[in-house]
């Protein structure tokens, strides 16, 4: 593994962690927006009757996103550790190969065979774990996209319901707007995570 590749792996994994952090913040904002919408819908009474169940949906979606992102985050931490291990085991193997080349005329050169073999086994296992983790992480990120897509549909419905809420129209439309924006941000961030992961996958 060359230094440039290692660097881009570390950067990519760090950027995934940053994007996930942002997703978490946005999901919490949606949750807040849901609570806010619920209060408005309660005050609006009959005029916002159709809006009330939507607020519960929004809240559920936010909760689901938070749970999914928490899981993904754990996986991302694991990926970081695997990136470190991958770097370390590859480095050990590379250095021992170098020793093998440098010590061709050494009396005890054969004693390096065992450590070299052990290093290779460790490195190969690490690479396999690393690839598996990336695949799992990509699947998990695809799951995070689902509530984000659903939130956009709900936002569209919210706008329709808000239009019938009389003097509460503006407040409820603002809620629908913020849910829509948040869903879009989550979608974009998760997409960036997936792109970053593709970089990691290709550089390995």
């Amino acid at each position, binding site marked *: 593994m060359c230094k440039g590749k290692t660097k881009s792996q570390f950067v990519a994994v760090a950027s995934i962690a940053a994007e996930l952090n942002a997703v978490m913040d946005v999901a919490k904002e949606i949750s807040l927006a849901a609570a806010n919408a619920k209060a408005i819908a309660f005050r609006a009474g009959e005029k916002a009757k159709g809006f009330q169940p939507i607020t519960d949906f929004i809240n559920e979606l936010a909760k689901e996103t938070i749970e999914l992102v928490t899981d993904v985050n754990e996986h991302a931490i694991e990926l970081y550790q695997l990136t470190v291990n991958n770097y370390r085991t590859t480095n*050990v193997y590379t250095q*021992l190969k*170098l020793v093998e080349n440098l010590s061709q005329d050494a*009396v005890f*050169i054969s004693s390096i065979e065992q450590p070299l073999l052990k*290093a290779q086994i460790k490195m190969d296992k690490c690479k396999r774990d690393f690839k598996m983790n990336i695949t799992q992480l990509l699947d998990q990120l695809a799951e995070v996209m689902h509530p984000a897509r659903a939130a956009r549909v709900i936002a569209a419905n919210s706008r329709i319901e808000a239009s019938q809420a009389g003097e509460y129209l503006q407040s409820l439309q603002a809620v629908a707007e913020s849910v829509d924006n948040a869903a879009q941000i989550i979608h974009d961030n998760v997409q960036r995570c997936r792109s970053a992961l593709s970089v990691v996958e290709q550089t390995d």
Partner: protein
Amino acid sequence: MKMTNIYEGSYQWIMFGRDENKPDNIIDTNQYMVRTAKRSLLIDPGGVELFSPMLAAVLHYAPADQITDLFASHQDPDIISSLGLWDQALPKAKLHASDLWEGFIKHFGCESIEYVPINDNGGTINLDEVELQIIPAHYMHSSANFNIYDPQAKILMSGDVGAALEEPDSPIFVENFDLHIEKMRFFHQRWMPSNHAKKVWIDRVRELDIDILAPQHGRMFKGDDVNRFLDWFETLQVGTAV
């Protein structure tokens, strides 16, 4: 990597250094090995950049599974940042280093190597029939610092004490002490923090019977140059940056 036998008895002392392939931007270091029938001790095995040439050189003297002990005089990267690689290369080895630095040195990677903590009073390392003394050299320059003394070979591995900054292809022994002084002055004045610690160290070392004083950088001192060095060092004011 140059390899030089500096003691040949029923066991050997070998000095490794002057690596011509060493990157220019890192300080040149001396590594030492004590080789007995079935065991080997690497003293200050060096930085991570030096691991491959060092192990390749060591394999001329011992198989990897007979490198049983490592010693780190203190925690600096040029002393022991290669630990993470030795850790994976040696099937069974111990690292002897200060108990004070344990949590720090382990940052270099220490999964399979057993860390043997040395308390402030020093101790011994036994290699087959050879007993090496761990001599306290605190604040010389590191706050928890040790030297290795071999009473049979009469060699004191003095860590950074006696070190000099000079060209990587310089001779391995001091040939003209007076000319050598200027290569050591700044190093000792700037890296050694305490005149009191210096005096304690000199008093302790004067009690030892030393043929070779072997520092981690620069040339070794032998014969009368050992006392010349101690006399010069005794008059030198250190800790000059404040």
